[in-house]
Structure formats: structure tokens, C-alpha cells
């Protein structure tokens, strides 16, 4: 878009000030069109990361000919010097160079932790080393507001969490890092990747917590409550995404749009999985750890999402209500027992059908090709899945296809009649 507007300015169609004003609506600037600094920044950051990895491997070689105190003091000195250089550059106004040095300093700091562990054969709870590394980098997020350092910190925290999980420990303070990432995304307003990473990390942690509770607080045991729990978070975030999409700030509006898009993708993936009757059959064998409270969470979160999305119109709150009702009743049915998995699978397939229709409708109404083609894709994939994986026998599958065709015909005719009405009214 920045390139397009720059062309208009060059051709004399609009004034530069007008160009900037137009782009400001979308959170862009004219200089974005010729901005090559991002490429420079990324390549330099990757080069530093590679140097850091080389340093870790050099240390891993274990130079036992060099006295251990010399090795340790050498690396401590390097860490201190690199960090102080970063600090000096930041204070003298060379922010980018300062960030690079502090980024490298953070890697050196972690390498020193690992070196000390290696020299003194520390085998006790190895993930602690990665945790101290992540915690040491964490304050730099607040001080420097650097995305690069934040990604390093979030990456380290995720490695720490995965290593903890592997040895059956619960990474209790993992959300601290994710919240720091979300906070920076909110303050800077220019990193949707950071926002999505932070939110994904939080959802991942909530699932871990539920599995940890399922394993009686000493091991991970997947429980069915995780699915309604994740759906409840998804519904609440959908409400938040509509709230953001109404925000006056174009950057926050963009956050809302992208969050909404990813939530739709996640929701569709879930519906595709649930569209198989075998999945519902598996669920029906499980028992909720939190009883009736589990499906109720969906209602509470659905109501919150409804109020958050209501001012955006029926296109917003309609799907929220439909999904809340569908998921609540389905998971309540599982809780009450005597589940007919065939019926649940049929309703899920109809939900996919309605979602596809809604996406096509939104795609045309908002002139958003992404929604339109996603909607077409949903309908085609649903048809393909049901053709290969019949619900019931051949006749049952055929009936489902006929019902789907009738709904699609009906929607198409309704659409056509609405269009004609509008045209007549305009004439």
C-alpha cells in the first residue's frame, strides 16, 4: 500500500501530506515503501544469533586444558563487557547498535550460565539454567522495548517450558514471559507476531495447567476439560478481537483483524476435527474433572464475547452466539451422558456449512477476498471429508449432502432476492 500511495504522489495525483494522511489510516508510512532497514536489521540479528550459537558450541567443546577459573572469568568478563558496550551505545543515542550488543550480551550471559554448570558438573534440574537465562533477559524487555530481545526471551522461556514438561515438571511462571510479550506488543503497537505468540503461549499454558491438575499435580494427564476450556478462551478472545476492530487507533484495529483471522482458522480446525463421529465417541467415554462447571465456562465466556462484539453488529455477535450455543449444548450433553455421537457429528458438519456461508457472505459484504475463499474452501473440504468418511451408511451420507445442498440453494436464492430488493430500492 505504501508503494501504491508513493506512486500516486510521484504521478501528482495527490500531495505528499495527503499520502501520509491516507497511509496513517492503515498504520503505514510513505518511507515503508523504500524501507530497506528491516532487511538489514533482520540479517544483522540473525548473524549475531549465529555467532551466539557458535559461542555456545565452542563452550560445549569443554576446553579442559584451560583452568576452569580462567574459562569462567573469561566468559563473565566477555558478558559484562558486551552488555556495558550495549548500555553505552543506548545512552549515547545509538539505539539499534545498542540493542544488537545487548542481544549478544544476553546470549553471552546464558552461555556463561551453561559454562558454570558444565565446569562444576551441575546435573541438578537442568532446566533451571534456562530459566535463569530467561529471567535475566526479562527486564530488558521493559527497559529497551526491543522486539528482538523480547523474541529471544520468549523463545528461551518456551524452550525452558518444553524441557520442564519433558521431565514432568510444571513451568508455573511461563505466563510471566508471555504477558511481557503481550505488553510490549500493546505498547509498541507494531508487532502482531508478538501479540499472537504471547496469546498462543498463554493458551498453551492453560492447557498444561489443566493437564497438570488432571495428573494430580505431579504428572501431565490430558483431560477432556481442556477442549471446552480452550473453546471458552477462544470465544472470549473473539469478543476482544471485535472490540479491537472498533478501536480508533488503526494499529490496534489491525491487531483485532489479524487476531480474528487466526481465531477463525483455529475454530475451523477444531470443527473439522469434531466433524468425525469417532472423535465425539471418544469424548463420550471421558468424564469431566470439573463436572458441570466445564460446559458452564463456555456460557460465561460466550456471554462476555457477545457483549464485546454486540456493537459491531449481527455479523459479529451472530456467530459468537451460535458457536456458544453449539459448544455449550454439545459438551453439556457429554456431561449428562447417553450421547449420540452421530447426531453431534451431523450438527458439527452443519456448523461447518453455516461457517462457510458466513465467511462467503462476509467476504462479499466487506470485499475481503480472504474470507470469501476461506468460506469456499471450508465448504469444499467439508464435502471432501464427508465423501471419504461417511456419517452412517451410504444413504445417511447422501441425505447429509442433500440437506447441505438445500441449505446452499436456499442461501443463494435468499442472497439473490436481497440483492434485487436493494437494486429496486436504489432505482
Amino acid at each position, binding site marked *: 500500500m505504501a508503494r501504491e500511495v508513493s506512486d500516486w504522489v510521484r504521478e501528482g495525483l495527490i500531495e505528499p501530506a495527503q499520502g501520509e494522511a491516507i497511509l496513517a489510516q492503515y498504520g503505514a508510512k510513505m518511507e515503508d515503501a523504500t524501507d530497506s532497514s528491516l532487511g538489514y536489521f533482520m540479517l544483522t540479528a540473525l548473524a549475531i544469533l549465529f555467532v551466539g550459537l557458535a559461542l*555456545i558450541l565452542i*563452550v*560445549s*567443546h*569443554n*576446553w*579442559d586444558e584451560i583452568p576452569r577459573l580462567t574459562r*569462567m572469568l573469561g566468559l*563473565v568478563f566477555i*558478558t*559484562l563487557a558486551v*552488555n*556495558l558496550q*550495549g*548500555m553505552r551505545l*543506548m*545512552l549515547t543515542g545509538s*539505539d539499534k547498535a545498542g540493542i544488537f550488543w*545487548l542481544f549478544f*550480551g544476553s546470549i553471552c*550471559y*546464558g*552461555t*556463561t*550460565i*551453561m*559454562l*558454570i*554448570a*558444565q*565446569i*562444576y*558438573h*551441575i*546435573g*541438578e*534440574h*537442568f532446566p533451571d*539454567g*534456562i530459566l*535463569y537465562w530467561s*529471567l*535475566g533477559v526479562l*527486564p*530488558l524487555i*521493559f*527497559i*529497551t*522495548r526491543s522486539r528482538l530481545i523480547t523474541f529471544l526471551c520468549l523463545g528461551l522461556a518456551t524452550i525452558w517450558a518444553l*524441557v520442564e514438561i519433558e521431565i*514432568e*515438571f510444571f513451568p508455573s511462571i511461563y505466563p510471566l514471559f508471555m504477558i511481557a510479550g503481550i505488553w510490549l506488543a500493546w505498547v509498541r503497537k507494531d508487532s502482531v507476531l508478538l501479540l499472537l505468540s504471547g496469546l498462543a503461549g498463554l493458551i498453551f499454558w492453560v492447557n498444561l495447567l489443566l493437564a497438570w491438575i488432571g495428573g494430580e499435580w*505431579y*504428572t501431565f494427564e490430558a483431560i477432556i476439560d481442556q477442549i471446552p476450556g480452550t473453546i471458552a478462551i477462544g470465544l472470549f478472545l473473539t469478543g476482544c478481537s471485535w472490540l479491537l476492530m472498533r478501536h480508533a487507533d488503526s494499529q490496534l484495529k489491525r491487531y483485532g483483524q489479524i487476531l480474528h483471522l487466526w481465531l477463525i482458522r483455529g475454530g475451523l480446525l477444531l470443527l473439522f476435527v469434531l466433524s468425525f463421529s469417532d472423535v465425539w465417541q471418544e469424548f463420550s467415554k471421558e468424564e469431566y474433572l470439573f463436572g458441570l462447571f466445564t460446559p458452564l465456562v463456555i456460557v460465561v465466556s460466550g456471554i462476555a464475547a457477545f457483549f464485546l462484539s454486540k456493537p459491531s453488529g449481527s455479523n459479529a455477535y451472530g456467530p459468537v452466539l451460535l458457536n456458544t450455543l453449539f459448544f455449550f449444548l454439545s459438551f453439556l450433553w457429554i456431561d449428562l451422558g447417553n450421547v449420540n455421537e452421530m447426531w453431534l457429528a451431523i450438527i458439527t458438519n452443519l456448523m461447518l456449512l453455516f461457517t462457510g456461508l458466513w465467511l462467503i457472505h462476509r467476504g462479499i459484504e466487506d470485499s475481503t477476498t480472504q474470507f470469501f475463499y476461506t468460506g469456499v474452501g471450508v465448504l469444499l473440504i467439508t464435502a471432501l471429508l464427508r465423501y471419504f468418511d461417511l456419517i452412517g451408511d451410504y444413504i445417511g451420507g447422501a441425505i447429509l449432502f442433500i440437506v447441505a445442498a438445500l441449505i446452499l440453494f436456499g442461501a443463494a436464492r435468499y442472497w439473490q432476492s436481497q440483492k434485487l430488493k436493494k437494486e429496486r430500492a436504489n432505482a
Partner: protein
Amino acid sequence: MREIFKTWTPANKRFLAIGLAITISAQMMVLVTEYLSSVWPLWFGNPITLETKPVDPRSLFRGNYVLLNYTISDISKNLTHEDFKPGEVGYVTLKEEDGLFVATALQHEKPETGIYIRGRVKKVKPDYRLKYGIEAYFMPKEKALQTERSVRGGAQAEIFLLSNGKAALSKLICAKGDC
């Protein structure tokens, strides 16, 4: 308060200087603490010798090491009347037999007397398996492979124990070849 928070941005040089100074100092403190907690048992602990059974893996960040398994790593359920879950801390009382230390009891609370080592339960079946933080002996790759071969002929580890049960691995002693 809100106003103060608003001024805490990288544009504020005073905030930047103080913030970075505190962070770098904190990082240095972590490194010093890690160093001291590693050498403390070696400086002030009592040496004991344990029998080992090794293998040779590679750590993600710390290079190659000889993974040591001790005879006291597996504790028979007959040695305790308490129940343990994975992840719980346990204290193993040790007794010297022919120059080597062997386990005589396992309990949740620190024993009031005797020599004991602090560990964490990893497995509970069929017997309790504990880790004491002395299971990794880091070495250059070639040496680690050589040591692995040497220790197959029998090896012992010199361990230093603090009075609170914290252990530190000092060296390996091989019956045949170099360790």
C-alpha cells in the same frame, strides 16, 4: 504513579541507565550465585565415594558428558515406610561399607543424625529412582567416549556432601584405564 510509569521509556536516559545497570548487575549476581552454589560443597563438604554405572549423551547447551547412574539411584521400597510421588524431595541416609557408601533409608524429612544425601524422586515403580544432581560429568567428546569405555570396567565417583544433603561431583575414579 501513572505519570512516573509513563516517563519510564527508553527515551528517558536516566531510566535507561539505572534500568540497564540493575539488569546487568542482576545477571552478574545470578552468575556469582551459580558459581558459589557449585563450589560451596567442594569447599566445605565432606567427601564420600559412590559406585557408578555410566552412559554417554550430549546436553543441548553444555556439550558431552558421561551420564552417571549410582547404586544409590535405585532405592528399594523396603528401605522406607513413606510414600513418594515423582518430583518429591527425599533424603537418603548413607552408610559406609568397604570404603563405598550405600543407602540404608529414604525419608521426606531431613535425618537428625548421620550422613545423608538430598535427591528428587524420578520414578516410583518398581523401586524408587532418585536423582541427586550429580549424574552428569562433563568432558570433551573424545574424552567422554574414552571414559565411558574405561568406566565399564567399574568406576567410583568422589562426591562432596554439605550438611544439608546437597551434593557436588568432584571426580571419577576408574578401576581400569584413565577416567
